[in-house]
């Protein structure tokens, strides 16, 4: 197994892969988590109004299930948003890394530019 650091055209190909991960793959997954988190946020808007009751009904004003539902909801919504943020930040780091490696290796940068030209700019499948 080759353990020597890649450089030149080989590194250029690796950089194109990193760029794809940072511009397409990871943002696509982050968008899934953003959408899931937004759906959960929407489900909780005004949810107290669904549970509310008055008069002599048991559990006035919201019943015993409301609070634990909100608690579990908030945990899961935060998990979705945090995951989206973490993946987005990682994707950004990969893009920054790509630019930095390309800046340091002219031949790798040329290969990276060629692959971008041939394959096109990777874009996330969002929406």
């Amino acid at each position, binding site marked *: 197994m080759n*353990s*020597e*650091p*890649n450089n030149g055209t*080989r590194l250029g190909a*690796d950089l194109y*892969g*990193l760029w*794809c*991960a940072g511009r397409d*793959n*990871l943002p*696509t*997954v982050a*968008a*899934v*988590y953003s*959408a*899931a*988190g937004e*759906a*959960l946020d*929407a*489900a909780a808007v005004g949810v107290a*109004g*669904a*549970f509310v*009751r*008055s*008069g*002599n*009904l*048991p*559990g006035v004003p919201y*019943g*015993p*299930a409301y*609070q*634990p*539902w909100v*608690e*579990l*909801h908030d*945990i*899961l919504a935060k*998990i*979705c948003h*945090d*995951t989206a943020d*973490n993946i987005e*930040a*990682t994707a950004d*780091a*990969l893009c*920054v*890394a790509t630019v*930095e*490696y390309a800046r*340091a290796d002219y031949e790798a940068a040329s290969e990276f530019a060629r692959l971008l030209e041939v394959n096109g700019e990777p874009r996330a*499948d969002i929406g």
Partner: protein
Amino acid sequence: MSFDNLMQHAYEIQQQATLKALTESGARPAAPAGEPQLAPRHGEQETRQRVEQMFGDIPELFQAFAEMPDPAAFSSRISVVDQALKQLSSGWISEDPVTRASYRANHDLDEMLDAESHIESWTGRAAMEFKSNFISPFPSIVYNQFMGIAVLRAALDAEREIWVRARDDIDKIAHDTITALDRMDDCGKNEWVMTFTVVSSVAAVAGVALAPVSFGLSLGLTAVGASSQVAAAGVPDDPPAVRFQGETAPAVVDSMRDAIRLLHGYIAEQEQKIADALTNCCQAVAQQRDSFVAKRPALADATQSDVTGPLFMGYST
């Protein structure tokens, strides 16, 4: 008659019970407002006041039910939570553990594996940790997140079911009371049976298994769902059939009050089942947080000046 006419039923019960009780007491009902009043008899006015007071609470008893939670308010939220489930349906799991409903796999999640193929040749510490700590457990974590959201959705299903059935039950109580007041003077015993369907609203799910993310026991999640939708569940409680009777208007109305009191208790029991399952689920998620969310990758905090160093991306081979 239906739930939408509940308050109409309540006033009808109050009016009918008042008329019957006045007759039982030998008093005549007051003439409607604006019409000539009957010549007063000794003690009649006091009897009317006493009887009216006796049934004065009836509208209030039903008012709380007329304003109880609307099942439709839960339905709209259930469909929104469903959107979250569709997003996190990875194909590694595509079935709701409570209802067994199938969700089409969201192939956008497969892009995490594509990202892995682009990062695997990098040798920096953060790059390698991203593979081992974030990408490798990703399928299990998505699976567990899906399960958690399915539990959240099922709780809304169960809550909705309670109020659907509570509407049927309170409507039945009103109907039974009106019928009992009608039949009070017939021969034979005036009795009726009320089946409290709300008792069968919530069904427990045997336990929602989680995918292991790290070494150690996975606790699984406790879930409840609407008994009409839960596929593989514990059997819900049988709806109790309670016998009521009443030979006089106050006795019939007392039976109605007993039925309403029982309905209050049954609703509280069913809601408590949902609350307990959700509380357990919150605890399970808190205790196994690593099974539900991967730690923030170190790469996420790399900067322009250090991202290419050995602590982050290092070099590719």
